[in-house]
């Protein structure tokens, strides 16, 4: 797509022009949106794709023999190809779900309750989002599997020696771990984790909700068994997410939800299931949102991950450089390989006050435990403030954050 080594040309102002919301003001101040890790803003291309669908070629998919339905089905199914290409999978390995959370639940239910037996163990890490922790707790409580938690180092990286201990008794059947932490920014070494898990006879599920936004993901190169992400963080609509599962695994899994679309034949006595991915897509899907996701992927591809990653690295490096010197400011995590998320605390100022006082300056950050409560406690904290970046974020916005934080510090000192 773009030249691999040289940093590609990246005109952030041109990109910002694609996002209508970025020209909004908040409290009379220019919006500085540093909350993309929670959910990203939507480019015009995504909005347009959704509107075009609703205005010119909408009908329910799959079951229709008329033009509108065929067009809409084509558009919808074309996104499956697009997603498959995006992460280097094949189209029957792509299941559309609502979000990353539903994808993990689907695996915990359909894979967890059949491929795992009571006594088998699942390993998650200390830096999981609740989406990749709670479903495994529910599986543990309902199905009797054991849940183990691999420690992270103080730098915020997976502790491999602990991981080896956890796998030592040969009970672990599944490693479910994030590809990028939404609090620490840590990228996990997914190829290494996958080959470690496989060498120990376990499968690996990767929570790509954050990673997929910032880096080119190749599920084959990683050798991931399952990979999940959400559309709304990838500049796409809400209500649509993706589960990738290896064909051989999906093929053996029973359905998750029952209803239309996911069946072969239905009688009162007995129903048969459709093949994957349809087996896992019951009822009318999020048609308009899926088409919006397709436009988001096109958008991201057109910029190219080489450029996106370089831009975000520049932003992150800059953020670390300008925030670290603020007296009393502590940045959470110090992973070698980290993405565009910077969580921090400010001595004597609660994260909520930080967020509210930044908001009054037009700067949107998040504060709290970021749906990773156990991690927050692991860090010895109750909450952090988090600035996170997207393709449209600028160095000047990070400088505005710094200025805002300096003001808050003065106010509280």
């Amino acid at each position, binding site marked *: 797509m773009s030249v691999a080594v040289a940093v590609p040309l990246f005109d952030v102002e041109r990109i910002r022009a694609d996002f209508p919301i970025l020209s909004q003001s908040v*409290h009379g101040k220019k919006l500085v949106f540093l909350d993309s890790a929670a959910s990203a803003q939507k480019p015009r291309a995504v909005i347009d794709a959704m509107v075009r669908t609703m205005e010119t070629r909408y009908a329910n998919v799959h079951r229709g023999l008329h033009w509108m339905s065929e067009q809409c089905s084509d558009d919808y199914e074309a996104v499956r190809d697009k997603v498959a290409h995006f992460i280097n999978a094949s189209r029957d390995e792509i299941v559309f779900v609502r979000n990353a959370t539903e994808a993990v639940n689907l695996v915990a239910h359909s894979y967890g309750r059949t491929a795992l037996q009571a006594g088998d163990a699942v390993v998650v890490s200390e830096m999981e989002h609740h989406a990749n922790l709670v479903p495994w707790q529910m599986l543990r409580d309902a199905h009797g599997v054991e849940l183990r938690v691999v420690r992270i180092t103080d730098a915020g990286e997976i502790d491999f020696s602990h991981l080896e201990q956890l796998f030592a008794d040969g009970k672990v059947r599944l490693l479910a771990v994030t590809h990028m932490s939404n609090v620490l920014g840590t990228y996990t070494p997914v190829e290494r984790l996958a080959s470690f898990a496989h060498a120990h006879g376990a499968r690996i599920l990767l929570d790509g909700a954050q990673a997929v936004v910032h880096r080119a993901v190749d599920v084959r190169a990683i050798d991931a068994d399952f990979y999940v992400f959400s559309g709304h963080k990838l500049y796409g609509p809400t209500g649509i997410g993706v589960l990738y599962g290896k064909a051989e695994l999906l093929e053996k899994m029973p359905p998750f939800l029952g209803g239309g679309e996911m069946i072969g034949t239905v009688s009162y006595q007995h129903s048969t299931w459709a093949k994957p991915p349809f087996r896992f897509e019951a009822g009318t899907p999020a048609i308009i949102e899926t088409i919006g996701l397709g436009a988001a992927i096109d958008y991201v591809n057109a910029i190219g991950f080489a450029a996106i990653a370089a831009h975000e690295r520049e932003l992150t490096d800059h953020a670390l450089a300008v925030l670290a010197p603020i007296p009393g400011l502590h940045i959470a995590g110090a992973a070698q390989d980290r993405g565009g998320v910077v969580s921090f605390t400010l001595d004597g100022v609660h994260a*909520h006050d930080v967020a*509210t*006082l930044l908001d*009054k300056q037009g700067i949107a950050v998040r504060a709290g435990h970021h749906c990773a409560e156990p991690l*927050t406690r692991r860090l010895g904290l109750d*909450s952090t403030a988090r600035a996170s970046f997207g393709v449209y974020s600028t160095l000047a916005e990070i400088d505005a954050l710094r200025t805002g934080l300096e003001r808050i510090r003065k*106010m509280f000192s």
Partner: protein
Amino acid sequence: MSDDASDLYQRLIMERARHPLHAGRVEAAQAEAEGNNPMCGDRVRLSLRCDEAGVIIEAAHETRGCAICVASADVLAETVIGRAGSEMAPLAVEFETMVQTGLVPAREDFAMLQAFAGVSAYRSRHRCATLPWQALTAAMNKRRELEHG
């Protein structure tokens, strides 16, 4: 910016957040309760001592939370000392209503409490101001249960 924020982060709030006057724990407390906001980790532990007539004679709080929450707990403690326990429930309701609506009730005892009226504009922060009052209500309820069986 300190001007911008004056509606929310008033001088009283900032002072009490930095230097709470009623932080700590009442010895031999007769009513104690905790308020928790699991979504953000804010925690208020309130302890009270009453005399035989049911008048609150000591009050203190241990608060881990934001400026709004700490200041609210501190002003609460200051406000309730010397008041009859039976007045607490209506007072808590009046406070919560003020935080919801931003309208300051025409009551003398809101001279300090009115500092929190500005929170109303920040819906996501309401909980921070009202958490100590929920702990107060819980403490009074516990005390009643103890007394009446």
